């Protein structure tokens, strides 16, 4: 860990220095959203105060500057995930919009009655509901790859689920509840062997682990800016050119058109075909700054530090006893869902809050995961590169306090 200076990293995040209820803030809700480093805050500030102008439209100085910055951001995102072309990077509002765009547009073109989409049992609602809506529109089917009680995806079941009616496999890279890191390369290999394209939900992985879309050979990959130290309201849809070219536009409006007459409209080329209306260009520029920040620290260093604190957190919680951790996959990210035996999650969460510890309580937008275990939900500690072992020790003290109050 010689090259990862945690104190320097923490100093980049102004939010972390504050107190809540007179206690130092311990922010463990990074799976929901991450805090923003000064490097992102300053860029977003600068664009709002000095360089704001609508992109692709004006011929004037400011518009030109911002348009360049926006397209540079696209190029940075391309490089970050090693896409072949910048035109394969679509700016959206986030992971949810990216998946909805694919479900509507890809679904419209390729999915018909009795066709099948395969997802997994551990998906976030954002990778379930759009496919159910598609199913209801097209009378298609939804099939599920199950996970076992350890939280390991049973990918040996995948070949049996794929038929000649299967049009897409859409799975999460890292579960937002179980923390499982799924073997997406293998999933893609299996699906491609049957000629089925694959969508990867990278909302919980882009900030934690290196991603190379050409090496993976995934057909679509989606993620959100705000979970990767960037601004809210910006997200990415990566798609292979051959699909993006073939797919119809998702929304109509400005900038996505070529020629508009009342009789007929022809569409702009990709990526603009999928970017109707005034996009969140400052968000896009802010996201590029966030990815620059990640790169400056090194995603490998971040990943290795996060594995260390995640292992520590698991060991410490296990050592406390009377705690049930959900998700014990050997390949696991820094997400820990757990319950304190005999204590309701809502009670524990409220006490944690007043001790300054921010965790998430509930189903974490993945109700089918908890249906698997027959519970309503859990507490969730989702760690990030700025969390420390001291904070985990403090969490353990908070667990003690909760136990003394409720059991």
């Amino acid at each position: 860990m010689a090259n990862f200076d945690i104190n320097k990293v923490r100093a980049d995040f102004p939010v972390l220095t504050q107190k809540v209820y007179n206690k130092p803030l311990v922010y463990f809700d990074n799976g929901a959203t991450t805090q923003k480093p000064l490097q992102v805050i300053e860029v977003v500030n600068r664009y709002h105060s000095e360089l704001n102008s609508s992109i692709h439209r004006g011929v004037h100085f400011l518009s030109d500057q911002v348009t360049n910055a926006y397209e540079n951001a696209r190029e940075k995102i391309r490089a970050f995930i090693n896409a072949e072309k910048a035109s394969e990077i679509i700016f959206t509002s986030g992971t949810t919009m990216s998946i909805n765009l694919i479900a509507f547009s890809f679904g419209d073109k390729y999915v018909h009655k009795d066709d099948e989409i395969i997802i997994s049992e551990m998906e976030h609602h954002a990778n379930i509901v759009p496919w159910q809506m598609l199913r209801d529109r097209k009378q298609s089917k939804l099939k599920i790859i199950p996970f076992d009680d350890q939280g390991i995806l049973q990918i040996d079941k995948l070949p049996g689920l794929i038929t000649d009616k299967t049009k897409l496999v859409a799975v999460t890279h890292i579960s937002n509840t179980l923390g499982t890191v799924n073997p997406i390369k293998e999933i893609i290999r299996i699906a491609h062997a049957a000629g089925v394209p694959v969508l990867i939900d990278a909302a919980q992985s882009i900030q934690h682990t290196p991603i190379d879309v050409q090496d993976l050979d995934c057909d679509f990959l989606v993620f959100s800016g705000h979970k990767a130290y960037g601004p809210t309201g910006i997200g990415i849809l990566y798609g292979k050119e051959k699909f993006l070219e073939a797919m119809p536009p998702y929304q109509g409006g400005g900038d996505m058109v070529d020629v508009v007459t009342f009789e007929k409209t022809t569409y702009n080329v990709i990526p603009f075909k999928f970017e109707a209306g005034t996009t969140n260009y400052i968000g896009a520029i802010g996201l590029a700054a966030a990815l620059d920040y990640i790169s400056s620290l090194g995603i490998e260093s971040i990943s290795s530090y996060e594995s260390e604190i995640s292992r520590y957190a698991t060991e410490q919680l296990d050592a406390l006893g009377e705690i049930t951790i959900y998700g014990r996959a050997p390949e696991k990210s820094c997400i820990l869902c757990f319950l304190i035996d005999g204590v309701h999650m809502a009670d524990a969460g409220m006490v944690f809050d007043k001790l300054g510890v921010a965790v998430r309580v509930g189903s974490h937008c993945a109700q089918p995961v908890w249906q698997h275990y027959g519970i309503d939900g859990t507490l969730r500690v989702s760690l990030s590169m700025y969390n420390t072992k001291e904070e985990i020790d403090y969490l353990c003290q908070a667990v003690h306090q909760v136990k003394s109050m409720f059991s």
Partner: protein
Amino acid sequence: MVATIQEVQKDIIDEFVVFDDWMDRYNYLIELSNGLPEIDPKLKNNEYLIRGCQSKVWLNAEYADGKIRYTADSDAIITKGIIALLIRVLSNRTPQEIINTKLEFIDTIGLRQNLSPTRANGLLSMIKQMKLYAIAYDAKEKKN
């Protein structure tokens, strides 16, 4: 003489004023949860359930002698403690009293967070449900 709703709310505010630590406030709510009269176990079913994302609440209302008597329960203890306060304020009142009451005490004692509109714990829905019962019984009374 029975205390008015306003008097009961003021009593509760006075009880909580002494706590300067959140854990004391929560410990008091835990104590209050133990004193909440039990809801008929037969009523703890989906018909009486108000589902929150984090915890569940069950609520029943009975009308007799011009007054509404509420019974309720929750699977989470702090929520149950807040329910005990709501019942102390609103139960055994006339529909008109319940309809016209502004529940100020929750805000004043610092528990507003528990009334988030994101249906986290079902409490906001529970208060709405309590008022709906009052409106329904009031309408029924006027008809008779």
